[in-house]
Protein backbone atom coordinates (compact mmCIF):
# COMPACT_ATOMS: atom_id res chain seq x y z
CA UNK A 1 0.00 0.00 0.00
CA UNK A 2 2.96 2.33 0.03
CA UNK A 3 3.70 2.39 -3.68
CA UNK A 4 2.01 5.76 -3.93
CA UNK A 5 3.41 7.15 -0.73
CA UNK A 6 5.98 9.39 -2.36
CA UNK A 7 5.20 12.38 -4.54
CA UNK A 8 4.85 11.72 -8.22
CA UNK A 9 7.62 13.15 -10.27
CA UNK A 10 7.10 12.76 -13.99
CA UNK A 11 10.31 14.64 -14.79
CA UNK A 12 12.69 12.29 -13.01
CA UNK A 13 13.72 8.96 -14.39
CA UNK A 14 15.86 7.23 -11.80
CA UNK A 15 16.05 4.05 -13.91
CA UNK A 16 18.21 5.61 -16.56
CA UNK A 17 20.05 8.51 -15.04
CA UNK A 18 21.67 9.06 -11.67
CA UNK A 19 20.18 11.73 -9.46
CA UNK A 20 22.02 15.00 -9.07
CA UNK A 21 22.66 16.20 -5.54
CA UNK A 22 22.58 19.71 -4.10
CA UNK A 23 25.48 21.20 -2.11
CA UNK A 24 23.45 20.47 1.06
CA UNK A 25 23.05 16.73 0.39
CA UNK A 26 25.26 15.61 3.28
CA UNK A 27 23.57 18.05 5.67
CA UNK A 28 20.10 16.75 4.72
CA UNK A 29 21.17 13.19 5.46
CA UNK A 30 22.76 14.25 8.74
CA UNK A 31 19.47 15.96 9.69
CA UNK A 32 17.54 12.74 9.01
CA UNK A 33 15.79 13.87 5.85
CA UNK A 34 13.84 11.45 3.71
CA UNK A 35 15.32 11.97 0.27
CA UNK A 36 13.21 11.54 -2.87
CA UNK A 37 13.84 12.06 -6.57
CA UNK A 38 12.51 15.40 -7.77
CA UNK A 39 13.27 17.00 -11.14
CA UNK A 40 16.37 14.84 -11.44
CA UNK A 41 17.69 15.72 -7.98
CA UNK A 42 17.77 13.86 -4.68
CA UNK A 43 15.78 16.28 -2.50
CA UNK A 44 14.52 16.22 1.09
CA UNK A 45 10.73 15.72 1.08
CA UNK A 46 10.62 15.92 4.88
CA UNK A 47 12.71 15.64 8.02
CA UNK A 48 11.77 13.60 11.10
CA UNK A 49 9.14 16.02 12.53
CA UNK A 50 7.06 15.47 9.38
CA UNK A 51 5.36 17.70 6.85
CA UNK A 52 2.62 19.05 9.14
CA UNK A 53 5.03 20.06 11.92
CA UNK A 54 7.44 21.64 9.40
CA UNK A 55 4.59 23.49 7.72
CA UNK A 56 3.22 24.88 11.00
CA UNK A 57 6.71 25.85 12.16
CA UNK A 58 7.14 27.92 9.00
CA UNK A 59 3.80 29.67 9.60
CA UNK A 60 4.68 30.50 13.21
CA UNK A 61 8.49 30.85 13.31
CA UNK A 62 11.00 30.32 10.46
CA UNK A 63 11.85 27.42 8.17
CA UNK A 64 14.91 26.81 6.02
CA UNK A 65 14.39 25.13 2.65
CA UNK A 66 17.03 23.93 0.20
CA UNK A 67 15.82 24.92 -3.26
CA UNK A 68 19.18 24.53 -4.97
CA UNK A 69 17.58 22.36 -7.65
CA UNK A 70 16.08 25.49 -9.16
CA UNK A 71 17.85 27.01 -12.15
CA UNK A 72 19.85 30.18 -11.60
CA UNK A 73 21.43 32.19 -14.39
CA UNK A 74 22.83 35.67 -14.95
CA UNK A 75 21.65 37.60 -17.97
CA UNK A 76 23.93 40.47 -18.84
CA UNK A 77 24.95 42.84 -21.59
CA UNK A 78 23.88 46.00 -23.32
CA UNK A 79 20.08 46.32 -23.34
CA UNK A 80 19.64 43.03 -21.50
CA UNK A 81 16.20 44.23 -20.30
CA UNK A 82 14.96 44.74 -23.85
CA UNK A 83 16.33 41.33 -24.82
CA UNK A 84 14.40 39.62 -22.00
CA UNK A 85 11.21 41.53 -22.82
CA UNK A 86 11.14 39.73 -26.17
CA UNK A 87 10.34 36.55 -24.19
CA UNK A 88 8.20 37.66 -21.22
CA UNK A 89 5.11 39.88 -20.79
CA UNK A 90 6.47 41.54 -17.63
CA UNK A 91 7.83 45.07 -17.42
CA UNK A 92 11.55 44.37 -17.17
CA UNK A 93 12.77 47.74 -18.47
CA UNK A 94 10.85 49.44 -15.68
CA UNK A 95 12.33 47.25 -12.96
CA UNK A 96 14.70 49.30 -10.81
CA UNK A 97 18.14 47.96 -9.86
CA UNK A 98 17.76 46.23 -6.48
CA UNK A 99 14.24 45.03 -7.30
CA UNK A 100 12.83 41.66 -8.36
CA UNK A 101 9.72 40.74 -10.32
CA UNK A 102 7.72 37.56 -10.96
CA UNK A 103 7.14 36.97 -14.66
CA UNK A 104 6.39 34.29 -17.25
CA UNK A 105 8.00 32.87 -20.33
CA UNK A 106 5.13 32.66 -22.82
CA UNK A 107 4.79 30.91 -26.17
CA UNK A 108 3.17 32.19 -29.37
CA UNK A 109 -0.14 30.50 -28.44
CA UNK A 110 -0.23 32.41 -25.16
CA UNK A 111 0.72 29.34 -23.10
CA UNK A 112 3.19 29.43 -20.22
CA UNK A 113 6.63 27.92 -20.82
CA UNK A 114 7.69 28.64 -17.24
CA UNK A 115 7.28 31.09 -14.40
CA UNK A 116 10.39 32.77 -13.06
CA UNK A 117 11.86 35.45 -10.83
CA UNK A 118 13.88 38.24 -12.47
CA UNK A 119 16.11 40.30 -10.17
CA UNK A 120 17.78 43.43 -11.52
CA UNK A 121 21.21 43.49 -9.93
CA UNK A 122 22.47 46.39 -12.08
CA UNK A 123 21.31 48.34 -15.12
CA UNK A 124 22.47 45.60 -17.51
CA UNK A 125 22.69 42.58 -15.19
CA UNK A 126 19.83 40.29 -14.07
CA UNK A 127 19.61 37.14 -11.98
CA UNK A 128 16.96 34.73 -13.27
CA UNK A 129 15.56 31.90 -11.14
CA UNK A 130 13.59 29.28 -13.08
CA UNK A 131 11.93 25.97 -12.15
CA UNK A 132 14.15 22.91 -11.77
CA UNK A 133 11.94 20.87 -14.06
CA UNK A 134 12.15 23.54 -16.78
CA UNK A 135 15.73 24.77 -16.70
CA UNK A 136 16.91 22.43 -19.47
CA UNK A 137 14.16 23.90 -21.68
CA UNK A 138 14.24 27.52 -20.55
CA UNK A 139 17.92 28.29 -20.80
CA UNK A 140 18.34 27.30 -24.50
CA UNK A 141 15.02 29.03 -25.24
CA UNK A 142 16.26 32.30 -23.72
CA UNK A 143 19.73 31.98 -25.20
CA UNK A 144 18.35 31.48 -28.71
CA UNK A 145 16.55 34.82 -28.53
CA UNK A 146 19.47 36.91 -27.31
CA UNK A 147 21.11 39.49 -29.55
CA UNK A 148 24.89 39.80 -29.84
CA UNK A 149 26.26 41.49 -26.73
CA UNK A 150 23.81 39.88 -24.28
CA UNK A 151 24.67 36.57 -22.72
CA UNK A 152 23.17 34.05 -20.31
CA UNK A 153 25.42 32.26 -17.83
CA UNK A 154 23.90 29.37 -15.85
CA UNK A 155 25.06 29.05 -12.23
CA UNK A 156 25.44 25.35 -11.54
CA UNK A 157 27.97 26.57 -8.95
CA UNK A 158 25.39 28.30 -6.76
CA UNK A 159 22.97 26.95 -4.16
CA UNK A 160 19.62 28.56 -3.28
CA UNK A 161 18.25 28.64 0.25
CA UNK A 162 14.82 29.91 1.26
CA UNK A 163 14.37 31.26 4.80
CA UNK A 164 10.62 31.69 5.30
CA UNK A 165 8.32 32.64 8.13
CA UNK A 166 7.31 35.52 10.39
CA UNK A 167 10.62 35.33 12.29
CA UNK A 168 12.82 35.13 9.17
CA UNK A 169 13.58 38.86 9.06
CA UNK A 170 14.70 38.99 12.70
CA UNK A 171 16.98 36.01 12.08
CA UNK A 172 18.52 37.38 8.90
CA UNK A 173 19.03 40.83 10.44
CA UNK A 174 21.49 39.18 12.88
CA UNK A 175 23.68 38.28 9.89
CA UNK A 176 23.09 41.48 7.92
CA UNK A 177 21.02 44.42 9.08
CA UNK A 178 20.79 45.62 5.51
CA UNK A 179 19.46 42.30 4.21
CA UNK A 180 16.97 42.07 7.08
CA UNK A 181 15.65 45.52 6.16
CA UNK A 182 15.00 44.79 2.47
CA UNK A 183 11.52 45.67 1.24
CA UNK A 184 9.25 43.02 -0.33
CA UNK A 185 10.79 41.96 -3.66
CA UNK A 186 13.94 43.92 -2.89
CA UNK A 187 17.29 42.38 -3.88
CA UNK A 188 20.73 42.90 -2.36
CA UNK A 189 24.21 41.72 -3.33
CA UNK A 190 25.81 41.46 0.10
CA UNK A 191 27.67 39.31 2.60
CA UNK A 192 26.07 37.08 5.22
CA UNK A 193 28.58 36.05 7.86
CA UNK A 194 31.30 37.01 5.38
CA UNK A 195 29.82 34.83 2.62
CA UNK A 196 28.97 36.65 -0.64
CA UNK A 197 25.22 36.20 -1.27
CA UNK A 198 22.43 37.61 -3.37
CA UNK A 199 19.45 38.02 -1.06
CA UNK A 200 15.89 38.77 -2.14
CA UNK A 201 12.89 39.32 0.10
CA UNK A 202 10.59 36.83 -1.55
CA UNK A 203 9.48 33.22 -1.37
CA UNK A 204 6.92 30.58 -2.17
CA UNK A 205 5.09 30.10 1.12
CA UNK A 206 2.89 33.18 1.50
CA UNK A 207 4.99 34.19 4.50
CA UNK A 208 7.54 36.96 4.80
CA UNK A 209 10.98 35.61 4.00
CA UNK A 210 14.09 35.55 1.88
CA UNK A 211 15.69 33.59 -0.91
CA UNK A 212 19.46 33.48 -0.71
CA UNK A 213 21.69 32.62 -3.67
CA UNK A 214 25.04 31.45 -2.32
CA UNK A 215 28.19 29.93 -3.86
CA UNK A 216 27.97 26.13 -3.56
CA UNK A 217 31.12 25.85 -1.47
CA UNK A 218 29.67 28.14 1.22
CA UNK A 219 26.10 26.80 1.18
CA UNK A 220 26.47 24.29 4.01
CA UNK A 221 28.21 26.79 6.30
CA UNK A 222 25.44 29.33 5.70
CA UNK A 223 22.70 26.73 6.22
CA UNK A 224 24.29 25.61 9.49
CA UNK A 225 24.62 29.24 10.60
CA UNK A 226 20.91 29.84 9.96
CA UNK A 227 19.83 26.53 11.54
CA UNK A 228 21.79 27.49 14.66
CA UNK A 229 19.26 30.26 15.32
CA UNK A 230 16.58 29.17 17.79
CA UNK A 231 13.68 30.16 15.50
CA UNK A 232 14.85 28.17 12.47
CA UNK A 233 14.12 24.53 11.61
CA UNK A 234 14.68 22.71 8.33
CA UNK A 235 11.67 22.02 6.11
CA UNK A 236 11.39 19.83 3.03
CA UNK A 237 9.63 19.91 -0.31
CA UNK A 238 6.49 18.40 1.23
CA UNK A 239 5.94 21.44 3.46
CA UNK A 240 6.96 23.75 0.62
CA UNK A 241 4.15 22.26 -1.47
CA UNK A 242 1.47 22.47 1.24
CA UNK A 243 2.53 26.04 2.10
CA UNK A 244 2.35 27.24 -1.49
CA UNK A 245 -1.01 25.53 -1.97
CA UNK A 246 -2.44 27.36 1.07
CA UNK A 247 -0.96 30.57 -0.37
CA UNK A 248 -2.73 29.91 -3.70
CA UNK A 249 0.57 30.01 -5.61
CA UNK A 250 0.64 27.99 -8.85
CA UNK A 251 3.12 25.14 -9.33
CA UNK A 252 4.54 24.83 -12.82
CA UNK A 253 3.61 21.49 -14.37
CA UNK A 254 0.52 21.18 -12.14
CA UNK A 255 -1.38 24.47 -12.19
CA UNK A 256 0.26 26.16 -15.15
CA UNK A 257 1.88 24.80 -18.29
CA UNK A 258 2.14 25.37 -22.03
CA UNK A 259 -1.61 24.77 -22.40
CA UNK A 260 -2.70 27.31 -19.77
CA UNK A 261 -2.64 31.06 -20.38
CA UNK A 262 -1.81 33.80 -17.86
CA UNK A 263 -5.43 34.97 -18.08
CA UNK A 264 -6.89 31.55 -17.26
CA UNK A 265 -4.32 31.11 -14.49
CA UNK A 266 -5.24 34.37 -12.77
CA UNK A 267 -1.81 35.81 -13.59
CA UNK A 268 -2.96 38.74 -15.75
CA UNK A 269 -1.46 41.01 -13.06
CA UNK A 270 2.02 39.92 -14.24
CA UNK A 271 1.47 41.62 -17.61
CA UNK A 272 3.25 44.98 -17.53
CA UNK A 273 1.06 48.01 -18.17
CA UNK A 274 3.36 49.20 -20.95
CA UNK A 275 3.43 45.68 -22.40
CA UNK A 276 -0.40 45.69 -22.51
CA UNK A 277 -0.27 48.85 -24.62
CA UNK A 278 2.31 47.51 -27.06
CA UNK A 279 1.19 43.85 -27.11
CA UNK A 280 4.74 42.96 -28.15
CA UNK A 281 5.41 39.71 -26.23
CA UNK A 282 5.02 36.06 -27.30
CA UNK A 283 1.36 35.05 -27.37
CA UNK A 284 0.16 38.67 -27.08
CA UNK A 285 -2.73 38.31 -29.53
CA UNK A 286 -4.13 35.15 -27.89
CA UNK A 287 -3.74 36.67 -24.43
CA UNK A 288 -5.31 39.97 -25.55
CA UNK A 289 -8.29 38.07 -26.97
CA UNK A 290 -8.80 36.29 -23.63
CA UNK A 291 -8.59 39.53 -21.67
CA UNK A 292 -11.14 41.20 -23.95
CA UNK A 293 -13.57 38.28 -24.31
CA UNK A 294 -12.95 36.38 -21.10
CA UNK A 295 -11.19 33.02 -20.90
CA UNK A 296 -13.16 29.79 -21.24
CA UNK A 297 -11.94 28.61 -17.84
CA UNK A 298 -10.30 30.05 -14.75
CA UNK A 299 -8.00 28.79 -12.02
CA UNK A 300 -9.89 28.83 -8.71
CA UNK A 301 -9.53 27.68 -5.13
CA UNK A 302 -11.76 24.83 -3.97
CA UNK A 303 -12.81 23.83 -0.45
CA UNK A 304 -14.28 20.40 0.19
CA UNK A 305 -17.14 19.89 2.64
CA UNK A 306 -15.76 16.62 4.00
CA UNK A 307 -12.34 15.43 5.20
CA UNK A 308 -11.19 13.53 2.09
CA UNK A 309 -8.54 15.31 0.02
CA UNK A 310 -8.92 15.53 -3.77
CA UNK A 311 -5.63 15.19 -5.65
CA UNK A 312 -4.40 16.58 -8.97
CA UNK A 313 -6.30 15.01 -11.87
CA UNK A 314 -9.62 14.75 -10.01
CA UNK A 315 -12.58 15.60 -12.25
CA UNK A 316 -14.80 18.51 -11.24
CA UNK A 317 -18.53 18.21 -11.97
CA UNK A 318 -21.13 21.01 -11.94
CA UNK A 319 -24.35 20.76 -9.90
CA UNK A 320 -26.25 19.90 -13.11
CA UNK A 321 -23.93 16.95 -13.75
CA UNK A 322 -21.97 18.53 -16.60
CA UNK A 323 -18.19 18.49 -16.69
CA UNK A 324 -16.74 21.56 -14.99
CA UNK A 325 -12.98 21.04 -15.08
CA UNK A 326 -10.06 19.34 -13.35
CA UNK A 327 -8.17 19.69 -10.06
CA UNK A 328 -4.53 20.65 -10.72
CA UNK A 329 -3.22 20.68 -7.12
CA UNK A 330 -4.91 19.22 -4.10
CA UNK A 331 -4.04 18.07 -0.64
CA UNK A 332 -4.43 18.78 3.01
CA UNK A 333 -4.06 22.20 4.62
CA UNK A 334 -2.29 21.91 7.98
CA UNK A 335 -3.26 25.50 8.85
CA UNK A 336 -6.97 24.97 8.17
CA UNK A 337 -6.94 21.29 9.19
CA UNK A 338 -9.02 20.56 6.09
CA UNK A 339 -8.57 19.48 2.49
CA UNK A 340 -7.97 22.25 -0.09
CA UNK A 341 -7.40 22.25 -3.84
CA UNK A 342 -6.91 24.41 -6.90
CA UNK A 343 -8.15 23.68 -10.37
CA UNK A 344 -9.60 25.06 -13.55
CA UNK A 345 -13.37 25.43 -13.95
CA UNK A 346 -15.62 26.75 -16.71
CA UNK A 347 -15.89 30.50 -16.38
CA UNK A 348 -19.61 30.33 -15.53
CA UNK A 349 -18.66 28.27 -12.45
CA UNK A 350 -15.73 30.39 -11.24
CA UNK A 351 -17.64 32.62 -8.77
CA UNK A 352 -16.73 32.18 -5.11
CA UNK A 353 -19.22 29.90 -3.40
CA UNK A 354 -20.29 28.01 -6.54
CA UNK A 355 -21.27 24.47 -5.53
CA UNK A 356 -19.41 21.66 -7.32
CA UNK A 357 -18.73 17.96 -6.95
CA UNK A 358 -15.31 16.34 -7.10
CA UNK A 359 -15.21 12.75 -8.34
CA UNK A 360 -12.95 10.91 -5.89
CA UNK A 361 -12.74 7.09 -6.10
CA UNK A 362 -15.94 7.13 -8.15
CA UNK A 363 -17.92 9.07 -5.55
CA UNK A 364 -19.07 12.70 -5.82
CA UNK A 365 -17.66 14.79 -2.95
CA UNK A 366 -19.42 18.12 -2.32
CA UNK A 367 -17.16 21.15 -2.67
CA UNK A 368 -17.32 24.84 -3.48
CA UNK A 369 -15.26 27.52 -5.16
CA UNK A 370 -13.27 29.44 -2.54
CA UNK A 371 -11.21 32.63 -2.70
CA UNK A 372 -7.43 32.37 -3.05
CA UNK A 373 -5.25 32.46 -1.07
CA UNK A 374 -6.67 30.02 1.47
CA UNK A 375 -4.35 31.50 4.10
CA UNK A 376 -3.68 35.26 3.85
CA UNK A 377 -0.28 36.33 2.55
CA UNK A 378 1.88 38.01 5.17
CA UNK A 379 4.57 39.57 3.00
CA UNK A 380 6.76 42.41 4.30
CA UNK A 381 5.43 45.84 3.41
Amino acid at each position, binding site marked *: MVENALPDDPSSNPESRPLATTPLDALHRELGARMVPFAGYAMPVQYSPGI*IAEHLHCRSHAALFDVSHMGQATLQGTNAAAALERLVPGDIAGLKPGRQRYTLLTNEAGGILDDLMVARLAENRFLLVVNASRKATDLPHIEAALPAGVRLDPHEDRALLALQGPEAAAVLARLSAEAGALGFMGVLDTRLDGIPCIVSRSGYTGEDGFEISVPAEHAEALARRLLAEAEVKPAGLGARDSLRLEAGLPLYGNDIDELTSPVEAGLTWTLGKRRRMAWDFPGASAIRDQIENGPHRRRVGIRLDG*RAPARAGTLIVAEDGTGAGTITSGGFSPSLNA*PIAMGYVRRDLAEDGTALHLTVRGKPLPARVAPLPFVPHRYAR
Partner: protein
Amino acid sequence: MPKLNAETRYTSDHEWVTLDGGVVTVGITDHAQEALGDVVFVELPEPGRQVEAAEACAVVESVKAASDVYAPISGRISDVNQAIVDDPSLVNREAASGGWFFRMDGVKEAEFDALMDHAEYQAHLETL
Protein backbone atom coordinates in the same frame (compact mmCIF):
# COMPACT_ATOMS: atom_id res chain seq x y z
CA MET B 1 -6.92 -3.91 21.39
CA PRO B 2 -4.79 -6.12 19.12
CA LYS B 3 -1.18 -6.74 20.01
CA LEU B 4 1.44 -7.84 17.51
CA ASN B 5 3.13 -11.06 18.52
CA ALA B 6 4.79 -14.14 17.09
CA GLU B 7 1.49 -15.19 15.51
CA THR B 8 1.07 -11.91 13.60
CA ARG B 9 1.06 -12.25 9.82
CA TYR B 10 1.94 -9.64 7.20
CA THR B 11 1.21 -8.86 3.56
CA SER B 12 3.54 -7.54 0.88
CA ASP B 13 1.29 -4.44 0.87
CA HIS B 14 2.47 -3.67 4.42
CA GLU B 15 -0.57 -4.72 6.38
CA TRP B 16 -0.36 -6.65 9.64
CA VAL B 17 -2.98 -9.25 10.48
CA THR B 18 -3.77 -10.96 13.79
CA LEU B 19 -6.17 -13.87 14.32
CA ASP B 20 -8.13 -14.30 17.54
CA GLY B 21 -11.15 -16.55 17.95
CA GLY B 22 -11.91 -16.73 14.24
CA VAL B 23 -11.74 -12.94 13.81
CA VAL B 24 -8.81 -11.20 12.11
CA THR B 25 -7.75 -7.63 12.87
CA VAL B 26 -5.98 -5.66 10.13
CA GLY B 27 -3.77 -2.58 10.33
CA ILE B 28 -0.82 -1.08 8.49
CA THR B 29 2.75 -1.69 9.55
CA ASP B 30 5.08 0.81 11.12
CA HIS B 31 7.04 0.80 7.85
CA ALA B 32 3.86 1.81 6.02
CA GLN B 33 2.92 4.66 8.36
CA GLU B 34 6.50 5.90 8.26
CA ALA B 35 6.53 5.87 4.45
CA LEU B 36 3.15 7.60 4.25
CA GLY B 37 4.01 10.38 6.66
CA ASP B 38 1.33 12.37 8.49
CA VAL B 39 -1.99 10.57 7.97
CA VAL B 40 -4.84 13.07 7.50
CA PHE B 41 -7.77 10.98 6.26
CA VAL B 42 -9.01 7.41 6.58
CA GLU B 43 -11.99 5.80 4.85
CA LEU B 44 -13.16 2.43 6.18
CA PRO B 45 -15.44 -0.23 4.67
CA GLU B 46 -19.08 -0.74 5.63
CA PRO B 47 -19.45 -3.44 8.30
CA GLY B 48 -21.15 -6.50 6.81
CA ARG B 49 -19.42 -6.15 3.44
CA GLN B 50 -18.05 -9.38 1.99
CA VAL B 51 -14.54 -8.90 0.61
CA GLU B 52 -12.14 -11.04 -1.38
CA ALA B 53 -8.43 -11.33 -0.65
CA ALA B 54 -6.49 -8.42 -2.23
CA GLU B 55 -9.68 -6.36 -2.66
CA ALA B 56 -9.22 -2.65 -1.92
CA CYS B 57 -11.48 -1.93 1.04
CA ALA B 58 -10.03 1.07 2.92
CA VAL B 59 -8.20 4.25 2.01
CA VAL B 60 -5.46 6.02 3.93
CA GLU B 61 -4.27 9.46 2.90
CA SER B 62 -1.27 11.43 4.10
CA VAL B 63 -0.45 15.05 3.31
CA LYS B 64 1.31 13.89 0.17
CA ALA B 65 -0.46 10.80 -1.08
CA ALA B 66 -3.45 8.46 -1.10
CA SER B 67 -3.11 4.68 -0.74
CA ASP B 68 -5.47 1.75 -0.70
CA VAL B 69 -5.58 -0.79 2.10
CA TYR B 70 -6.45 -4.29 0.88
CA ALA B 71 -8.24 -7.19 2.48
CA PRO B 72 -5.38 -9.57 3.35
CA ILE B 73 -7.68 -12.61 3.07
CA SER B 74 -11.32 -13.20 2.16
CA GLY B 75 -14.05 -12.68 4.73
CA ARG B 76 -16.76 -10.38 6.04
CA ILE B 77 -16.05 -6.95 7.55
CA SER B 78 -17.28 -7.31 11.12
CA ASP B 79 -15.99 -4.12 12.77
CA VAL B 80 -14.15 -0.91 11.90
CA ASN B 81 -12.05 1.46 14.01
CA GLN B 82 -13.94 4.76 14.15
CA ALA B 83 -11.14 6.21 16.31
CA ILE B 84 -8.81 6.53 13.29
CA VAL B 85 -11.54 8.24 11.27
CA ASP B 86 -11.97 10.79 14.07
CA ASP B 87 -8.21 11.16 14.63
CA PRO B 88 -6.22 9.93 11.61
CA SER B 89 -2.89 10.74 13.32
CA LEU B 90 -3.54 7.71 15.55
CA VAL B 91 -2.39 5.61 12.57
CA ASN B 92 1.05 7.24 12.84
CA ARG B 93 1.23 7.13 16.62
CA GLU B 94 -0.07 3.59 17.17
CA ALA B 95 0.13 1.78 13.83
CA ALA B 96 0.47 -1.63 15.46
CA SER B 97 -2.17 -1.23 18.18
CA GLY B 98 -4.79 1.55 18.56
CA GLY B 99 -4.42 2.46 14.88
CA TRP B 100 -5.98 -0.81 13.59
CA PHE B 101 -8.30 -0.43 10.56
CA PHE B 102 -10.92 -3.19 10.46
CA ARG B 103 -11.85 -6.70 11.63
CA MET B 104 -13.12 -9.59 9.54
CA ASP B 105 -14.95 -12.79 10.43
CA GLY B 106 -15.89 -15.78 8.27
CA VAL B 107 -12.23 -16.19 7.37
CA LYS B 108 -10.33 -19.36 6.49
CA GLU B 109 -7.47 -20.09 8.88
CA ALA B 110 -5.44 -21.60 6.03
CA GLU B 111 -5.47 -18.26 4.20
CA PHE B 112 -4.22 -16.55 7.35
CA ASP B 113 -1.47 -19.15 7.80
CA ALA B 114 -0.31 -18.63 4.21
CA LEU B 115 0.52 -14.96 4.82
CA MET B 116 4.10 -13.88 5.60
CA ASP B 117 5.37 -14.35 9.12
CA HIS B 118 7.52 -11.75 10.85
CA ALA B 119 10.83 -13.06 9.49
CA GLU B 120 9.45 -13.26 5.95
CA TYR B 121 8.11 -9.70 6.18
CA GLN B 122 11.46 -8.42 7.44
CA ALA B 123 13.12 -10.15 4.49
CA HIS B 124 10.55 -8.52 2.20
CA LEU B 125 11.41 -5.09 3.60
CA GLU B 126 15.08 -5.75 2.87
CA THR B 127 14.24 -6.14 -0.83
CA LEU B 128 12.60 -2.69 -1.10
